[in-house]
């Protein structure tokens, strides 16, 4: 009730004031009348009444105090006053607002990304219940896939899960949409989507009875595939499509747009995670298994339960499962682990940036508080308490912070799109990331934090005044107490140190990333284009038809203007395959050497431009019936034939079919080619590689490579016409130049963090420069009188310049040393995120101080030059 009245009185402020004036006027009039009645003349009566009454304003002020809403009133008054102050100093306001907007904006933007991509990476209900399950044989297979029978056993025996689903992804050709397309397809168990907790947006989910060998095929489309190849029309449901030219299937559903929008995510979901003949084979491990824990069950319980089952399988099937264990990981964890460390690093660096921004503004505020000293002294002398003045100064900084925050959020919103365009395409939930409510709350927190952070120290400093001291000082212009200047110097040192840490971090990340880019790959990526390519139509099921098709395709492609060579190269999956060398004793499977195996046409090797180091390349003499031959790379020759001539040696690549070792096919090494990095492991050290000639070992697909003549742009339409001239049902839509790493996964994260950390550290450098400039300029202004005297007494311009620069150099020097020491400590944290680069890289640790010294010199030199141009006469009249 009382509070209500108080609040009401706050909003009725003007009315109350008016009533009060009226009441007092009434009183005064009555008093005058009384005086007149007592026999005074009118002037006398008025004068006596006024004297008696006292100061109307004072009474009103005392009366207002009685109303009890002073603090709120003060707050509004402070705000009004703050707005006036900010408008009075547009330069200061602009610099601080910009600084703050950059700091808060950068923090908000990185937080927005972290919030979804790292903290909430899975767009499924109860993501904490989802786990990924692996069969493991450390150290060789620390996170292996799961064999179909093991999956079935887990599903049957484990009690901790409410559902366990499996999938296997590979590409297929699809016809029946608006045009043929190659769909990276996830073959799943029927419960897959329901385990994730996802419902199709259109149509329905799979049914358990559809996951049978002879049941009619059904598929569910990803949203953007539905958009691209089915025109986004609802009649896509029920549409008949053909997979690989043979299997008929019906579209039964379309997934919502937020379900795996990444470019490289599966385009289509169909049933049949494993063929029924694989259901009993423990040796072939290829399933990705996802489980949902029962509510209340933990990861550890799941791990324990599955370990018991795995141990039992090991005893039951020692041949395939001896020593194999199981590993249950949180799905969230596996989804974000590639992005998290670098995003946290970025969050840390924007934190530093914000800190620098705060230090900068604190510095500006300190400088301004000094020039407002007389105002503050006056207020104090008039009876304002210290608390009241601190409150007012804090009000100003909070207002500044709030305005900066608004600008910062705007900036964050505007720059988010740009930043996301630099982010790896598979960053979790990349399409949903926005400056959302949580990010807004976060930036509000930042506003409060920064408002107090940069405002409190200057406010306390400004009010810690000895009135006598100030009044004495103000005679001769050295306005600032010793303490103030010392504090501001400390702030500049801190700022320099922070900027050094950020610059070193960014320098290391940038150098590491550029190092990745400039790795020799063993071929010229410029002008080389590639695309996944496959023939899955039944017409191409025989080796002879595949051979004919690719011969015709190569001929057609060579007709296209600018194409100098074109061919197919087909890696045998990812990861190495074991092999044995003729004449060497057979080794147990665990010790067999491995190499990357690929089938390559002669033309593909020409397109790559792999140099032939010894022996001969593939040729027309290598026919299906001639001696089987292979080429190996330099790394393979070094590792396995060191000191011997590999040419003429024979090798068998050990292959399994349905768990059975296939009879050996001994292939003769006819040549050694230069090392190349495969597109799958672009940044690993060179792998040993074995190439089989396409003519002897045809496949139905792989990667199609085209080499363009230098300076000729690629003409996708002409290429597509050429491809369809051979067969109109083979999908072909896009080719990528092999320059630059694909912007995905770890590489994409490194790229993003290089761009952002470089950008942030550049901002930090600018802010630090502004800070140094501010302090030095102020320093010079304060000493103008002194400099004038020095020059009048014969000091040369050079002396003055040197004097000022020296004082600046001290600040920068100390900051630099502290910053470098802190960087050395910080570098260890970064070590894991650097690619083939020592965190103490001497180049980075040398170049950063140089850059900083250069910028700092400029920031000191401008005020120093001004000081050296001081006209002694003017200076002595200063103040």
């Amino acid at each position, binding site marked *: 009730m009382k509070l209500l009245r108080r609040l009401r009185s706050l909003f009725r402020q003007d009315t109350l004031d008016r*009533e009060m004036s009226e009441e007092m006027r009434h*009183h005064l009039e009555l008093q005058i009348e009384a005086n007149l009645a007592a026999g005074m003349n009118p002037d006398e009566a008025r004068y006596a009444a006024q004297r*008696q009454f006292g100061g109307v304003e004072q*009474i009103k002020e*005392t009366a207002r*105090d009685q109303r009890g809403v002073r603090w709120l009133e003060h707050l509004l008054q402070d705000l009004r006053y703050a707005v006036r102050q900010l408008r009075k100093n547009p330069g200061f306001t602009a610099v601080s607002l910009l600084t703050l907007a950059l700091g808060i904006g950068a923090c908000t933007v990185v937080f927005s990304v972290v919030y979804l991509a790292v903290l909430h990476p899975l767009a499924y209900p109860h993501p904490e219940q989802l786990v990924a399950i692996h069969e493991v044989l450390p150290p060789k297979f620390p996170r292996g896939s799961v064999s179909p029978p093991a999956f079935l056993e887990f599903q049957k025996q484990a009690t901790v899960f409410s559902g366990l689903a499996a999938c296997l992804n590979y590409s297929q050709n699809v016809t029946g949409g608006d045009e043929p397309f190659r769909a990276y397809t996830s073959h799943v168990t029927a419960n897959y989507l329901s385990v994730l907790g996802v419902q199709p947006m259109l149509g329905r989910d799979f049914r358990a009875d559809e996951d049978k060998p002879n049941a009619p095929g059904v598929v569910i489309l990803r949203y953007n595939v539905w958009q691209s190849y089915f025109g986004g029309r609802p009649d896509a449901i029920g549409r008949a499509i053909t997979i690989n030219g043979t299997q008929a299937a019906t579209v039964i559903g379309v997934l919502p747009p937020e379900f795996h929008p990444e470019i490289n995510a599966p385009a289509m979901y169909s049933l049949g995670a494993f063929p029924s003949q694989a259901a009993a084979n423990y040796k072939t491990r290829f399933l990705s298994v996802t489980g949902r824990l029962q509510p209340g069950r933990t990861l550890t319980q799941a791990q324990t339960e599955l370990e018991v089952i795995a141990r039992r399988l090991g005893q039951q099937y020692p041949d395939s499962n001896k020593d194999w264990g199981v590993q249950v990981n949180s799905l969230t964890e596996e989804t974000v682990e590639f992005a998290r460390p670098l995003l946290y690093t970025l969050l840390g660096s924007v934190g530093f940036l914000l800190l620098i921004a705060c230090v900068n503004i604190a510095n500006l505020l300190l400088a301004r508080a000094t020039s407002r000293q007389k105002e503050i002294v006056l207020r104090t002398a008039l009876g304002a308490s210290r608390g009241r003045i601190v409150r007012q100064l804090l009000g100003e900084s909070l207002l500044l912070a709030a305005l900066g925050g608004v600008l910062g959020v705007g900036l964050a919103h505007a720059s988010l799109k740009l930043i996301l365009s630099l982010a790896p395409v598979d960053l979790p939930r990349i399409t949903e990331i926005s400056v959302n409510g949580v990010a807004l709350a976060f930036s509000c927190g930042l506003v409060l934090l920064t408002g107090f952070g940069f405002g409190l120290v200057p406010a306390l400093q400004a009010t810690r005044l000895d009135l006598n001291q100030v009044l004495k000082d103000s005679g001769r212009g050295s306005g600032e107490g010793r303490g103030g200047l010392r504090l501001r110097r400390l702030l500049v040192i801190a700022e320099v140190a922070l900027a050094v840490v950020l610059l070193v971090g960014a320098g290391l990340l940038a150098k590491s990333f550029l190092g990745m880019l400039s790795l020799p790959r063993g071929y010229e990526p410029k002008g080389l284009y590639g695309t996944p390519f496959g023939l899955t139509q039944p017409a191409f099921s025989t080796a002879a038809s595949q051979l004919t098709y690719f011969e015709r395709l190569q001929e057609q492609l060579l007709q296209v203007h600018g194409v100098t060579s074109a061919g197919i190269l087909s890696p045998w999956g990812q990861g190495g395959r074991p092999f044995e060398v003729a004449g060497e004793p057979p080794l147990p499977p665990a010790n067999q050497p491995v190499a990357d195996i690929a089938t390559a046409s002669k033309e593909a090797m020409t397109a790559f431009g792999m140099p032939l180091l010894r022996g001969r390349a593939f040729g027309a003499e290598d026919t299906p019936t001639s001696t089987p031959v292979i080429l190996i790379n330099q790394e393979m020759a070094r590792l396995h034939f060191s000191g011997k001539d590999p040419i003429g040696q024979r090798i068998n690549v050990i292959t399994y079919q349905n768990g059975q070792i296939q009879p050996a096919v001994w292939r003769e090494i006819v040549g050694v080619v230069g090392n190349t990095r495969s597109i799958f492991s672009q940044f690993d050290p060179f792998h040993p590689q074995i190439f089989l000639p396409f003519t002897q070992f045809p496949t139905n697909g792989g990667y199609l490579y085209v080499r363009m003549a230098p300076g000729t742009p690629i003409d996708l339409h002409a290429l597509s016409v050429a491809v369809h001239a051979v067969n109109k049902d083979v999908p072909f839509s896009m080719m990528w130049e092999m320059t630059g790493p694909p912007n995905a996964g770890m590489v994409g994260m490194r790229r993003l963090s290089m761009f952002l950390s470089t950008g942030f550290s550049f901002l930090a450098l600018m802010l630090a420069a502004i800070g140094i400039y501010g302090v030095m300029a102020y320093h010079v202004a304060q000493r103008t009188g002194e400099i004038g005297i020095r020059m009048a007494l014969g000091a040369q311009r050079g002396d003055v310049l040197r004097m000022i620069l020296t004082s600046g150099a001290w600040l920068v020097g100390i900051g630099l040393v502290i910053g470098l020491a802190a960087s050395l400590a910080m570098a260890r944290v970064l070590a894991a995120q650097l690619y083939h680069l020592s965190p103490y890289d001497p180049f980075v640790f040398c170049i950063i101080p140089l850059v900083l010294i250069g910028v700092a010199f400029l920031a000191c030199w401008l005020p120093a030059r001004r000081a050296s141009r001081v006209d002694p006469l003017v200076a002595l009249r200063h103040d």
Partner: protein
Amino acid sequence: MAKPNPKAELLQGTLDLLILKALQRGPIHGFGISLEIRQMSQDMLRVEQGSLYPALYRLEEQGWIAAEWGVSDNNRKARFYSLTPAGRRQLTIETANWEQVAAAINLVLKVT
């Protein structure tokens, strides 16, 4: 909240009591209250306006008196104050307090 001015603090208890007492007979405006106090004390107590109005607002704030705009004897708009029931209770309490204190002080002064 800002500190009350020291003079008012000194007078506060008694001034409040005097104002409440002055209002006991019925609503009057500020000038009337100061006249009333003067008359009741036979010209011995004069209330300064500087203390009167803040005290009035404070009492109003505490809910002991209520204010209302009305028309004064000479047809001018004036703010009339009156006792609320709470104010009436307060007057009784403060009168009793005052009597106790006055009696105590008298006792003290009579010693020696």
